[in-house]
């Protein structure tokens, strides 16, 4: 592990990768940009999760295959512990399923090591509240997730395993399309208050806490039909 002084005016980054050569390369690129400060490095997933909690960087650059704790498990540990950090996966290869899982765990995108020249625009996008998927800045992550799901051939028929009513499934379908409560209320000829009540029930049934989580969950579990 290597630490350096945190410079508050720069975007702070923690690099988690088991290879010191990769860490050095990424650190050099970030240092040379003059916009980022690498506050910490971790050579395994467990250490990465601990150091993120301790140093609270703005961004975590996370490899997938690492000793002790794989990248996605480290991300899961951070999410479970409620640690907030913008996470970009920086990996050699990743399956669509892993991208979906990472997004559901709160990752903000993926940069492949073979396309590391995209790292700075990806970080810029993430710092501006966007996602970075397949070499592009993305604002509507739900739409991207739908496309990825289709690409992965995971578009299963709706499978209701969570005790959701037909109306609740209907509302979930609107949520995955990025509709606001007002739009849903208009389409279903019900009040916004009723939509909110349905959403509260849905969140309780599936254990999600916001619309994005719900949309990703619904797509991954085949709760909506395209």
């Amino acid at each position, binding site marked *: 592990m290597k630490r350096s002084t945190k410079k508050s005016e720069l975007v702070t980054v923690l690099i988690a*990768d*088991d*290879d*010191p*050569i*990769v860490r*050095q*390369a*990424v650190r*050099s*690129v970030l240092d*040379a*940009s003059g916009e980022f400060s690498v506050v910490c490095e971790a050579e395994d997933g467990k250490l990465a999760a601990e150091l993120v909690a301790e140093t609270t960087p703005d961004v975590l650059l996370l*490899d997938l*295959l690492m000793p002790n704790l794989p990248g996605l498990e480290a991300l899961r540990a951070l999410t479970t512990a409620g640690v907030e950090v913008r996470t970009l996966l920086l*990996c*050699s*290869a990743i399956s669509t399923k892993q991208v979906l899982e990472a997004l559901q765990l709160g990752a903000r995108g993926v940069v*492949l*090591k*073979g396309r*590391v*020249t995209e*790292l*700075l*625009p990806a970080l810029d996008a993430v710092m501006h509240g966007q996602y970075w998927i397949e070499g592009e800045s993305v604002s509507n992550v739900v739409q991207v997730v739908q496309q990825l799901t289709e690409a992965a051939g995971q578009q299963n028929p709706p499978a209701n395993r969570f005790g959701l009513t037909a109306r609740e499934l209907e509302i979930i379908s609107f949520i995955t399309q990025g509709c606001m409560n007002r739009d849903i209320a208009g389409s279903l000829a019900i009040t916004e208050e009723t939509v909110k009540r349905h959403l509260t029930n849905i969140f309780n049934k599936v254990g999600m806490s916001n619309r994005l989580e719900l949309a990703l969950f619904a797509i991954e579990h085949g709760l909506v039909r395209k």
Partner: protein
Amino acid sequence: MTQQRGEEEVRATLEKVWLESRPQALERVATLERLAEAIRLGAPDQESREIALAAAHRLSGALGVFGFGEASCCAAEIESLLAGGLPPDGATFAQLVARLRTLLEEAGAQNTAQMEKRNT
């Protein structure tokens, strides 16, 4: 800074880091070559295989970062052969390692030429 200029600067930075990191990368190839020789002699032990697997994994990632796509793929292929658990086929393994060595040497020469061009 335009995106294109940003990419050029990133490449220039990576070229410098590559020059420093190349000996380490070649040492990893040497690790793979030692395993290839052990396989040829019929005496690869589990520990050597694990060390070689880690070397191939790291090479695959690092070579990708430096823009050596073909060498990175070659290292990934070696990694996948070793990750199978069983001793890899000796001839295939040795061929891939030799290919990786050649690709890295070519990459080194290409990199030096690019840096010289940039500095003139």
